[in-house]
């Protein structure tokens, strides 16, 4: 177990294993997202009150899940980088920030589009929406911090600290609908409880959620590989790799 984790920390070994894993995640992600999209948008039943606007859930919920999961992953990678000085954790954290910001934006945007026909407003400063907007700003802060330092090491440390402290926002987002009065309804789809909808509605949603997670892993593997080549460009094995390719 420890040997495996140690190996995972080596950029060269990670570069090799990710090359083999990556295609699988791409295939599974694309298949699941394609199946989930068609199923959710065309075949799943509409809601008895909201009609077809309910179908926004098939984009809204997976992107909101991912927005929060990516931030937690980034914070954990930040701790690993700060305590154990494992560079690959920092590379992964650096490349997943833009995807996390994009997912947060998608969930806010799809939520706003959903809010117009159902609630009658596209934005309301309720606890859930506001804490999600703060998450977007935290992502933008992490991305900006990485670009704000001349030395990469200082940038990495500053971004890691912001991610670790910012992770406090995640339980606030999750429980905001339980702790306070909000316009947003409580969660209808969680890992721990039975979904508050029939199978023909939640099954395509589950497929979309798993597909989005595979997409996240595939993108992160791909971008981490690029980041490895960029940062280790002077290492011997990278030069040999480049020599082979030429």
């Amino acid at each position, binding site marked *: 177990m420890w040997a495996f984790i140690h190996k995972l920390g080596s950029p060269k070994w990670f570069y090799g294993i990710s090359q083999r894993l990556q295609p699988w995640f791409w295939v599974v992600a694309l298949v699941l997202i394609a199946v989930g999209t068609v199923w959710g948008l065309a075949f799943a*039943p*509409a*809601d*008895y*009150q*909201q009609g077809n606007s*309910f179908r926004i*859930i098939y984009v809204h919920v997976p992107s909101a899940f991912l927005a929060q999961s990516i931030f937690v992953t980034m914070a954990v990678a930040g*701790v690993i980088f*700060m*305590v*154990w000085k494992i560079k690959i954790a920092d590379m992964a954290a650096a490349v997943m920030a833009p995807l996390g910001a994009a997912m947060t934006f998608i969930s806010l945007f799809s939520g706003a589009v959903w809010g117009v*026909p*159902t*609630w*009658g*407003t596209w934005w*309301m*400063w*309720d*606890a859930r929406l506001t804490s999600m907007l703060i998450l977007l700003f935290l992502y933008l802060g992490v991305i900006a911090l990485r670009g704000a330092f001349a030395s990469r090491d200082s940038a990495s440390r500053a971004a890691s600290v912001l991610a*670790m*402290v910012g*992770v*406090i926002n995640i339980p*606030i987002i999750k429980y905001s609908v*339980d*702790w*306070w*009065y*909000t*316009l947003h*309804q*409580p*969660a*209808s789809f969680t890992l721990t*409880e*039975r979904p*508050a*909808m*029939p199978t*023909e*509605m939640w099954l395509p949603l589950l497929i979309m959620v798993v597909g989005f997670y595979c997409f996240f892993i595939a993108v992160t593997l791909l971008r981490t590989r690029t980041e490895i080549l960029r940062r280790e460009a002077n290492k011997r094995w990278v030069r040999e790799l480049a020599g082979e390719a030429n």
Partner: protein
Amino acid sequence: MTPKRKRKLTIILGLVSLAAVAVGLTLYALRANINLFFSPIQIAAGDAPFERQIRAGGMVKEGTVSRNPDSLDVEFVVTDYVEDLEVRYSGILPDLFREGQGVVVVGELQPSGEFRADQVLARHDENYMPPEVAEALEDAGYSPADFKTEGSESDSAKSEDS
């Protein structure tokens, strides 16, 4: 783990938990402002200011919606099943607005106890249902609301202390 790494991990955990406590206390102190709306109980208890823009929320009481046939004026009662709040509104209601549905009304509370709304927003719960299922339930003499999970009832228990 080397002592140095252990110390670093302790510092990080310490800082994050301190920050968490700080945020937690701030949110606790601001809880009255974070709540999106006043419930009819809070309004009846005199917690809400008069003639200032506030929001109130609850369920539209069954059988209380009366529309003026010549204008967009509408009157209804918002209830949390303990206290009632009379609401007057003139304008277009959201599609989801109906009796028994959750709403948030934005407007001013009058000293007479009546609420003058400038905007009515519909809330919905987390239970989604295909129309055929909802119809079948109604044919069988149930309301879809009877099949809600416990979570949807939790609103009434929220922050009675604020």
